[in-house]
């Protein structure tokens, strides 16, 4: 007896064959689970993750949920930051109702007093002979602040990595990072995959769902995903009018991404190692996430899109379709990233997908992520953004607009793709230089490549 619900899709190609082609229900959770003890959760616990804008934390504790764990964050009266398991180890009262002390926090119920590192300072109702203080601790995690964001490390305390300090904040000189935090009711992997999918910029943001990016994005690009030391570039190369336009986003495992702005009108030559958004896709739990980080306000980004720091904040970013706060029928008429990603499902059903050639970035990310998770299971430390000789972690997100040589036939899309790849990878080749020097070196390299056309990139 046949059971249509058990059939895999794509076998029956008759019209009106919905009965025979129902989506296979997915139980795929290896890369999506984030909770304690899960393979993916253990891997993610080898990294620092942002979880709150520092200015959100005022005098009272805030309950937070991160990697499937209920926690409470507070700043004690001495300025110390604490991130503790939310429920008091005594009888389980939530420490969001704790009283912040000069040092640490005191549970409201029986006054148990915990330091920011979880050590028990006092159990006032217990006899002086009580050993509770030395025998138990409240679960606590390391917490640091950088660029207006609070970061947590929730992994083994004997394997604490450096908090990565990225080079993207330094260039150009007038750069002003402004933090933001957006809640998205879906699994974190979907948010990363959206960034590893540059063809959606053409369709969702230009051709199908409204002119959200500049008109240059209506030109279908050549895609490429060259690997970088800690991940890969999700890049698109287009011939727009008289120019070649290369746009490359950083995908750095596990959940770091950087993206140029989508407003470049491709009207003049430029080379910019200058992301518009630096962001992390942060798992709240399996079915909820934040994407958060900072926007780069500077003369480069503001030259194509006017922005102010007031445009960014909690659930606030000046780009259509990033929240569920829009009227439903407007979202239907001009859907954005939020609508595309959230409606894949709280955890996308990957077994029912039909991937195409433009999904190479998505596939590459899944493979890299799965390998990193397996490595972690086998006790192999995953690669991490490291600081070398006090320099910052190198990143590669960039845009290049260069005048195309006259008289060259660009119908050879492969040549265009190779040009884009070579130009983009020159940012990796020169990554021993400062961001400004890298821009200068890449500008020269790209011009040399143009001069060598049609011989093309070596």
């Amino acid at each position: 007896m046949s059971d249509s619900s058990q059939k895999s899709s794509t076998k029956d190609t008759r019209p009106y064959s919905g009965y025979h082609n129902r989506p296979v229900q997915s139980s795929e959770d290896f890369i999506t689970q984030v909770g304690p003890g899960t393979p993916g959760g253990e891997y993610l616990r080898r990294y620092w993750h942002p979880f709150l804008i520092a200015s959100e934390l005022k005098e009272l504790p805030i309950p937070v949920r991160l990697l499937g764990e209920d926690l409470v964050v507070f700043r004690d009266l001495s300025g110390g930051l604490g991130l503790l398991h939310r429920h008091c180890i005594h009888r389980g009262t939530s420490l969001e109702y704790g009283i912040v002390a000069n040092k640490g926090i005191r549970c409201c119920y029986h006054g148990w007093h915990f330091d920011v590192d979880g050590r028990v300072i006092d159990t006032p109702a217990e006899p002086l002979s009580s050993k509770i203080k030395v025998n138990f601790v409240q679960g606590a995690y390391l917490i640091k602040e950088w660029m207006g964001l609070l970061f947590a490390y929730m992994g083994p305390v004997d394997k604490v990595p450096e908090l990565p300090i990225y080079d993207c904040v330094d260039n150009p000189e007038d750069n002003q990072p402004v933090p933001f935090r957006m809640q998205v009711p879906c699994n974190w992997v979907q948010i990363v995959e959206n960034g590893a999918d540059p063809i959606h910029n053409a369709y969702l943001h230009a051709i199908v769902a409204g002119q959200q990016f500049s008109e240059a994005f209506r030109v279908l690009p050549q895609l490429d995903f060259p690997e970088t030391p800690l991940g890969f570039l999700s890049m698109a190369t287009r011939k727009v009018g008289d120019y070649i336009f290369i746009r490359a986003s950083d995908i750095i495992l596990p959940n770091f991404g950087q993206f140029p702005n989508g407003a470049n009108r491709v009207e003049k030559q430029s080379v910019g190692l200058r992301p518009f958004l630096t962001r992390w896709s942060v798992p709240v739990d399996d079915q909820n996430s934040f994407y958060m980080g900072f926007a780069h306000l500077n003369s480069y980004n503001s030259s194509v899109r006017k922005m102010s720091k007031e445009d960014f904040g909690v659930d606030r970013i000046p780009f259509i379709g990033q929240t569920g706060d829009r009227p439903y029928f407007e979202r239907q008429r001009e859907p954005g990233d939020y609508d595309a990603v959230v409606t894949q499902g709280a955890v996308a059903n990957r077994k029912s997908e039909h991937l195409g050639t433009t999904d190479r970035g998505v596939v590459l990310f899944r493979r890299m992520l799965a390998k990193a998770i397996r490595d972690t299971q086998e006790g192999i430390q995953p690669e991490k953004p490291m600081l070398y000789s006090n320099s910052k972690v190198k990143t590669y997100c960039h845009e290049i607009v260069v005048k195309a040589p006259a008289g060259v036939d660009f119908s050879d899309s492969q040549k265009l793709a190779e040009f884009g790849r070579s130009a983009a990878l020159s940012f990796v080749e020169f990554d021993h230089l400062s961001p400004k020097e890298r821009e200068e070196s890449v500008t020269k390299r790209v011009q040399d490549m143009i001069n060598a056309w049609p011989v093309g990139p070596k």
Partner: protein
Amino acid sequence: MLGLLVLSNFLIVVFNMSNLFLEKIVFAGEVGFLNGLLPINLSDPKVFLPESVEEQSRQIMRNLDELMIRQSLKREQIVAVQVFLKDFHRFYARFEAIASELFGSEISISKNVVGVVALPRDALISMNFVIRANL
């Protein structure tokens, strides 16, 4: 005309039963009323609403200015504002953070803010204003 249905101590459904896009401040003697002002684009209501509660608040104030100028009124003549917020717990603090930007910190305006279940056009915010005829 604005209809209110009290569902609980905290939740009120607002039915805007008159023209959705009010374009006039109605005076009764010396007191004017402008109810149900939405963050629409007055010149083209089909334009999408701004996405954030902050931008929707600013759009309402732009609409207010436009309607007041039409009747030769000034911001200083505003006596009271009643603010209706969808998803009160998410948006109240964010609205209050920009309240002085919207209404000024010098001018004394009677203000209250109410949480509602839904608003016309699925807006996040709507405002009623009371305006005196003369300074």
